[in-house]
């Protein structure tokens, strides 16, 4: 496509048309936005660079933060839960690394459009770019924290299996989830400014009731209940390929696929219907 054609497609809109064209425009936004890898990846890197500008360790702080947290929590909770540090610490490390990504993706979803208000109101670009930027930023952060996992595995002599390759589809599935979540939370938060603090508080609470720093088995006969917690499923599809599955293997994949389909079914119609309102809201 030449530059001109692209712009024609981008601006050739007729308001008041049927929802079919609205939907087509929303899909175009999502695919064209994704195609602009160089835009959202550059912006995401810029975000990281700015966050650590002037600090000596820079993004290494991301790595260090995880080390400090796991190091201090690991021994204490192993004691409190009467668990072997050799099993508990790797479990905690893997869980925390991925939980941090999930948590910050959820809270960042709320700010993805509001944060880009200056751009949204000055130039035309696919709205989805702001969501891809947010997802990419969180994946970059993950790349800095994930290095702690192999170190811990080596220290505690934990073998890894072929299942490690499942990390890739798991990250892809969660990224798709993040896209839908970015649409839903990003748009609602732009319209209703009370939503971001509500979400932040909720996520904080969910952290404690989700088996991340405690194992689902500790619930005894209620353990299976946690299997249906979507946040557990999200952590589990990333955690079990590394340190082995809990009770029902692959159940979390099922739950997570279901969740993705469900929030996608909300996000896509919502994006089609209200996408054009975003510049008025931010």
């Amino acid at each position: 496509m030449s530059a001109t054609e692209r712009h024609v497609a981008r601006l050739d809109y007729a308001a008041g048309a049927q929802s079919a064209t609205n939907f087509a425009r929303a899909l175009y936004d999502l695919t064209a936005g994704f195609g602009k890898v160089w835009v959202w990846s550059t912006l995401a890197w810029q975000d990281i660079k700015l966050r650590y500008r002037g600090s000596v360790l820079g993004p290494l702080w991301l790595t260090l933060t995880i080390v400090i947290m796991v190091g201090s929590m690991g021994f204490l909770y192993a004691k409190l839960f009467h668990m072997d540090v050799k099993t508990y610490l790797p479990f905690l490390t893997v869980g925390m690394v991925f939980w941090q990504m999930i948590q910050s993706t959820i809270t960042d979803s709320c700010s993805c459009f509001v944060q880009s208000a200056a751009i949204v109101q000055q130039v035309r670009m696919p709205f989805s770019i702001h969501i891809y930027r947010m997802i990419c930023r969180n994946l970059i952060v993950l790349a800095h924290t994930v290095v702690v996992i192999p170190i811990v595995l080596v220290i505690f002599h934990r073998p890894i299996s072929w299942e490690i390759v499942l990390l890739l589809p798991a990250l892809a599935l969660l990224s798709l989830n993040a896209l839908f979540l970015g649409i839903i939370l990003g748009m609602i938060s732009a319209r209703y400014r009370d939503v971001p603090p509500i979400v932040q508080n909720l996520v904080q609470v969910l952290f404690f009731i989700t088996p991340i720093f405690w194992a689902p088995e500790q619930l005894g006969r209620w353990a299976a209940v946690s299997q249906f917690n979507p946040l557990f499923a999200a952590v589990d599809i990333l955690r079990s390929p590394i340190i082995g599955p809990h009770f029902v293997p692959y159940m979390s994949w099922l739950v997570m696929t279901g969740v993705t389909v469900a929030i996608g079914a909300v996000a896509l119609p919502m994006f089609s219907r209200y996408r054009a309102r975003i510049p008025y809201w931010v």
Partner: protein
Amino acid sequence: MPHIRLRDVHVAFPIYQGASRSLKKSLVASSMLGNLSKNEANNRIVVQALNGVNFDVEHGERFGIIGANGAGKTTLLKVLAGIYEPTSGSCVVSGRISSLLDAQAGLDPDATGRENIIMRGLYLDIHPSVMREHAAEIATFTALEHYMDMPVRTYSAGMMMRLGFAASTCIMPEILIMDEWLAAGDAQFIGKAQKRMEEFVERSSILVLASHSMDLLRRWCRRGIFLHHGRIQFSGDIESVIEAYDDFVHRNSGGEL
């Protein structure tokens, strides 16, 4: 060929008051049946910013927009730039478009001058590698060579403006949409900026310029419209549009405009 077609474009602009921005108000209102609370939550002002605007601009044309403050000029430019989608009607803009609505907007104070140039490129759909080639030229033009790697927040207001202006005008668009004439700055810079701006405009295929300066409109535009309360009050060649606007201002002087 680049062109612009506007057909019966309406834009209704909801202004959310502090109250209706809150989720609680909306939830409470929808759970109660009383009309009163419902009104309170929907306590928003809808501004009809554009009201059935029609016009075409063809390749090679220079198009001016005149109107008092609040006439809908900026809204119209944002519709042309593709930022606002019309509430009803259709707007077709075909061609590589660049909207210089506010050259300084979007500068990140914490990023360096060089990084801001790259980011401006991203917003204008220009690849960082292309933008990097232009960085040297921008640095020379703005005389900011020694400041390129310093955060923009350390710049003076004038330096920021120079950077924003130069970064926005380094790539030629087919369709240029401008809210007021961009070139400004201190005495030294303004001459250079003026020249760059003129080149920029001359090489674009279509110019749409909204301005309060009749001299500027006379100089650059052949044709135009006079907007009032979101409607086209008069359209035609630029002289007659300016005349109609002047008449209107005189008739209404003393009264509210």
